[in-house]
């Protein structure tokens, strides 16, 4: 009845899940709502711009401009997310201890927090552009009244927001004591998945060889297009038929960011160490 609702929901899940984890990972960070909203706003604006230039992007670089562009978005997001995880490890712990005043002082002199804006904006770009194009198509075809398209979009958007909120609340409740560790590792795994997706776009563009066309096939057990499949794609980079190259990228990011995260020291819990910061 509302085709818009299904599509908008499908596209928005990715953004909603990323925001859900990022919000849970940054509990105690002053101004995080503003940063995330800023990222979302920038992402929506970017989506409209990208949607407008879709054809030019596609035709660029011998017709594989869209693949290269998507890969670039993925890899920049990988960089931003890795930075966020490592930054949270060094600064985050003191924020968790409710020393908000100290936290605010730390934040004032540190522009690194703006990486969060980038993370959210990048997560919004691609899917957002698809929503814009789809909606434009629906409006242009005239097959559905505008009210129905708008209502469908709102229902789909709310549905996505509910999923994100559920993840956020669920994390706060289930991982209370180890919130930083849990959300950090979730972000690391999510980042590895994005690197693999980026690699897939480069394979599609013919820039990278697949190394191995299909290392395994779990599509009979869990299809990539199902709700669970799509959700796991975002959260852990699930794909039913990975190529060798994707596994290489996935492992490389998982290992490198994981090892850095493990090795670097967090801020010590003593107040003296915090004051020295």
């Amino acid at each position, binding site marked *: 009845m509302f*085709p818009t609702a*299904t*599509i908008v929901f*499908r596209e928005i899940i990715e953004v909603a899940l990323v925001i859900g984890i990022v919000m849970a990972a940054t509990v105690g960070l002053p101004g995080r709502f503003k940063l995330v909203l800023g990222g979302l706003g920038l992402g929506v604006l970017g989506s409209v711009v990208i949607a407008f230039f*879709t*054809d030019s992007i*596609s*035709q660029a670089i011998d*017709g*594989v401009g*869209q*693949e290269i562009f998507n890969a670039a978005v993925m890899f920049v997001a990988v960089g931003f997310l890795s930075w966020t995880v490592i930054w949270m490890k060094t600064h985050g712990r003191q924020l968790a201890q409710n020393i908000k005043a100290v936290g605010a002082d730390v934040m004032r002199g540190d522009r690194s927090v703006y990486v969060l804006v980038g993370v959210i904006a990048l997560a919004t770009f691609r899917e957002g*552009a*698809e929503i814009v*194009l*789809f909606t*434009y*198509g*629906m409006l*242009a*075809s005239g097959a559905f009244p505008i009210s129905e398209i708008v209502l469908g979009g709102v229902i789909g958007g709310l549905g996505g927001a509910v999923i994100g909120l559920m993840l956020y609340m669920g994390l706060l409740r289930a991982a209370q004591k180890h919130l930083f560790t849990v959300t950090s590792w979730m972000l690391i795994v999510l980042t590895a998945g994005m690197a693999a997706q980026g690699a*897939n776009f480069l394979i*599609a*563009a*013919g820039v990278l*060889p*697949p*190394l*191995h*066309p*299909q*290392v395994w*096939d779990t*599509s009979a057990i869990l*299809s*990539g*297009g199902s709700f669970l*499949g799509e959700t796991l794609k975002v959260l852990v980079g699930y*794909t*039913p*038929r990975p190529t*060798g*190259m994707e*596994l290489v990228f996935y492992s490389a990011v998982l290992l490198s960011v994981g090892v850095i995260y493990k090795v670097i020291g967090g801020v010590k819990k003593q107040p003296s160490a915090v004051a020295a910061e």
Partner: protein
Amino acid sequence: MKKLFLTAVAFGLFSAPVFAGEVPEYNIVIKDHKFTPDEIRAPAGQKIKLVVDNQDPTPEEFESDDFRREKIIAGNSKATIFVGPLEPGKYHFFGEFNLDSANGTLYVE
């Protein structure tokens, strides 16, 4: 896992020269949010090229969860999509913006 990885690398090196060869091309037209043809037969173990011509005025996203490609095609324009090499099997593709009507199958044999 290590063995799997080594196999993967070995396979990659082995199959690399295939990419240098001719890439078979297949044309698909999108009209009234439907694919023509909606069935394609392609050889296994070889990279193929799909040229999708969207003759509708509205944009479409050509997508397949099975062979893992997604590409937005603006209204009245063409897009090239490289696929595979794939293992033999049945691969579903669809137009994400028109899930009810835009469906097709790629048979790899």
